[in-house]
């Protein structure tokens, strides 16, 4: 297709200005930022004719660019974290962020759980920490415009190294508290050494509910024989435009289990880019997305099987109420050498009201012959017969619907191993359903 040079949109122009004024004040070398931004601005905000953004037209959705917020004061940070509710009943090491900035005072570096090291990214960037070389573990993710924007603007974050068996989950708690819209760009790198096991929680909330624009990237390198549980909860306010990326490289004989639960944001797009780099590894990537009103929720996923005998399972469940729009794009790539791959991807959507839409694009790209790969996609309403059965047992319509929706999303959530976390997610679903009736 011919590359037509389009006029920059106001948002694109604003991004250029924002980058120009921020680049000297952002930590670390400006070189890699400038390179990423150049790549971004060469194509601009992705629109519907860019295949990967066919269903999430950022050029149309991002009209105005919010300013990046400054570092909050200690009192501001404390107040913001006081209003945060995500995973409140889960015992975990808290690694909080307020307005996109790591709240250093909240972490007692002297008393970190055994096997956990944390380095603030701002300092690391400023003094050229050796772990920085591990950033960008998925090379092809850097072609993605959302990722490029994060690389250009990343202002803060942490780098975490995990060794051995770590019982206490680490909870990255992101809270946005300003009354007016702000943009944030955080980057977290997690290196899980060989044989380590670890649970990472992520929550994203806003205490003000303003139309914030977070763009978060989590990058993980999981070594051989690691066991990693990752749970992400998007509980942003209903006006947020939330972009997020999980870039993942997993070694051999590992177990990696990730879920993203969406219960907020006007627009959300969660991208998972995973490379299975060692043999006999199991990957599970799940999603449970709840959309209402005119919300738009996009789950985009690319899993590359880069070694023999790996198994991947992807299960995405989307519930769409009112006039919301759900998007699932998933791709399993199996190159020639990844024989004996077993990949299964499923996207199921429930439309609860007449005005909703669902777009599914499950892809397989397969070059190895000795594989078993499958994908499925369904969309439709709640099963009338099941509803009747429940009603015949005395459950009113809404209650019957709720029970079936819970069961539907539960099939994705049940893979969360930590019981407290699972309970918290079930509670999130119940809360969403309660707000609906």
């Amino acid at each position: 297709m011919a590359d037509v040079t389009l006029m920059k949109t106001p948002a694109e122009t604003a991004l250029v200005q924002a980058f120009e004024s921020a680049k000297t004040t952002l930590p670390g070398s400006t070189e890699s930022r400038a390179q990423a931004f150049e790549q971004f601005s060469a194509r601009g905000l992705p629109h519907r004719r860019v295949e990967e953004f066919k269903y999430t037209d950022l050029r149309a959705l991002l009209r105005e660019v919010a300013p990046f917020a400054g570092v909050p004061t200690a009192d501001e940070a404390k107040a913001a974290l006081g209003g945060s509710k995500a995973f409140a009943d889960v015992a975990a090491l808290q690694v909080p962020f307020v307005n996109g900035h790591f709240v250093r005072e909240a972490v007692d570096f002297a008393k970190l759980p055994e096997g956990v090291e944390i380095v603030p990214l701002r300092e690391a960037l400023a003094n050229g920490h050796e772990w920085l070389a591990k950033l960008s573990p998925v090379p092809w993710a850097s072609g993605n415009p959302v990722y490029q924007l994060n690389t250009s603007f990343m202002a803060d974050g942490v780098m975490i190294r995990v060794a051995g068996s770590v019982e206490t989950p680490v909870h990255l708690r992101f809270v946005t508290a300003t009354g007016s819209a702000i943009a944030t760009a955080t980057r977290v790198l997690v290196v899980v050494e060989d044989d380590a096991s670890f649970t990472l929680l992520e929550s994203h909330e806003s205490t003000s509910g303003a139309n914030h624009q977070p763009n978060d990237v989590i990058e993980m390198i999981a070594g051989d024989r690691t066991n990693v549980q990752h749970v992400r909860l998007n509980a942003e306010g209903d006006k947020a435009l939330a972009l997020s990326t999980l870039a993942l490289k997993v070694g051999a004989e590992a177990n990696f289990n990730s879920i993203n639960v969406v219960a907020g944001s006007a627009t959300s797009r969660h991208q998972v880019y995973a490379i299975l780099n060692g043999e006999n590894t199991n990957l599970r990537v799940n999603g449970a997305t709840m959309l209402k009103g005119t919300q738009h929720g996009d789950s985009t996923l690319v899993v590359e099987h880069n070694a023999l005998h790996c198994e991947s399972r992807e299960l995405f469940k989307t519930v769409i109420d009112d006039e919301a729009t759900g998007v699932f794009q998933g791709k399993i790539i199996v190159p020639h050498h990844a024989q004996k791959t077993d990949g299964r991807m499923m996207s199921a959507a429930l439309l609860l009201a007449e005005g909703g839409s669902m777009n599914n694009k499950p892809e397989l790209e397969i070059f190895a012959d000795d594989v078993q790969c499958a994908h499925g996609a369904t969309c439709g309403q709640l099963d009338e017969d099941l509803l009747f059965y429940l009603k015949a047992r005395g459950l009113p319509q809404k209650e019957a619907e709720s029970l079936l929706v819970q069961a539907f999303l539960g099939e994705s959530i049940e893979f969360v191993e930590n019981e407290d976390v699972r309970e918290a997610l079930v509670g999130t679903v119940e809360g969403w359903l309660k707000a609906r009736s």
Partner: protein
Amino acid sequence: MPAVQETIDQVRSIDVDQYKYGFETEVEMEKSPKGLSEDVIRFISAKKGEPEWMLQWRLDAYKRWLTMTEPSWARVSYDKIDYNDIYYYAAPKKNPAPKSLDEVDPEILKTYEKLGIPLREQEILAGVEPERRVAVDAVFDSVSVATTFKEELAKAGVIFMPISEAIREYPDLVKQYLGTVVPVTDNFFATLNSAVFTDGSFVYIPPGVRCPMELSTYFRINEKNTGQFERTLIIADKGSYVSYLEGCTAPKRDENQLHAAVVELIALDDAEIKYSTVQNWYPGDAEGRGGIYNFVTKRGDCRGKNSVITWTQVETGSAITWKYPSCILRGDNSRGEFYSIAVSNGMQQVDSGTKMIHLGKNTTSRIISKGIAAGKSENTYRGLVSAHRKATGARNFTNCDSLLIGNQCGAHTVPYIESKNATAVFEHEATTSKISEDQMFYCQQRGLSEEEATALIVNGFVKDVLQQLPMEFAVEAQKLISISLEGSVG
């Protein structure tokens, strides 16, 4: 399963040369000047004796085409086509518009004989059940050389003739329907076709008529450096039924040749059209030299309520296939079906699938696609299923399975499933696998060779689709698949 045995025998009987239709016919041809220009279009239009409105239609398309760019989204790659290095018209010099079979160049008749296409009605009649007869329109490069059973069909009110003839004889029907399913501006290749199309078939089935026999068109590309741009238009009026089959072959050549066809189907209230294709264009040699670029736009419009359009395709040929026979389900309760077997071997590239666009209420569609990739080929299924706001009660079921034979090919699945109506129920499933070792072992343990076992299992894999073909063609298609896969084992 006698057909399997036949398949195996067939495969065995062929040595190195797998493509048995690769011969060339020596006929003196008249060609347009090389390249594409308004003058060439005027030349074609004049050759066809077209009315002014048709010429204007072509010229408008040409102007539009000049502003368009070739699509690049499909998963195929090829050297840039020089559109000015192609002859857009080639017809036998001797009597390009024969009135009867006796006037047709004997060389051409021999060609069809060799291809196994019956053109002499009396021969067809001998020993064949009346309902098993097939009327044939034989298109040789840019012209139709013969159309059989025209008179008998006319008795039933069925119009079956070359489209160039229909433009002259039934201008109102053509004007009413041409370009209404695939608009002139639809896509790069369709627009090109609208400007330069040469021949193809026109079918009109009047209200309430069940077409008394199968209709078919057999396309043959013969001349060097020509492109074939056929155009087919089929209209099934209210309550009528027609089954139509298309076949195609071409000589073996080192150069690539372009085939950019447009097929439009229109089914009015309660009408049914079954359209089957056995596509066997020359696929190129083992190194990927030569072969047909098959860039085809096929679309059916279920315009009336309760109408049905079924596409069945067996794709074994062409160097590159770019083809998405689609259904627009406009009429309430209309139904669209797509059954496909796409076999690729050697260096072939296939990007094929369908679109089911649900617009009307209670419309249903069904997609069964079987892709088999062998050699160093690339085989992609690409499909769209969409339900628009008003498509209450729409239903789709899609099953697309891919089979890889060997470790140097690729099989890909790219479905787009878009629902804007909560009452629509879409189910999609896809799998990619290889022939299971257990199945192979079981067959071999019972005494089948690896080749026989593969043929048997592949036949099983594609059975759902073969069942959709008219019987004679199912057998033919089954053989073709095995021939296409020859040499892929071991």
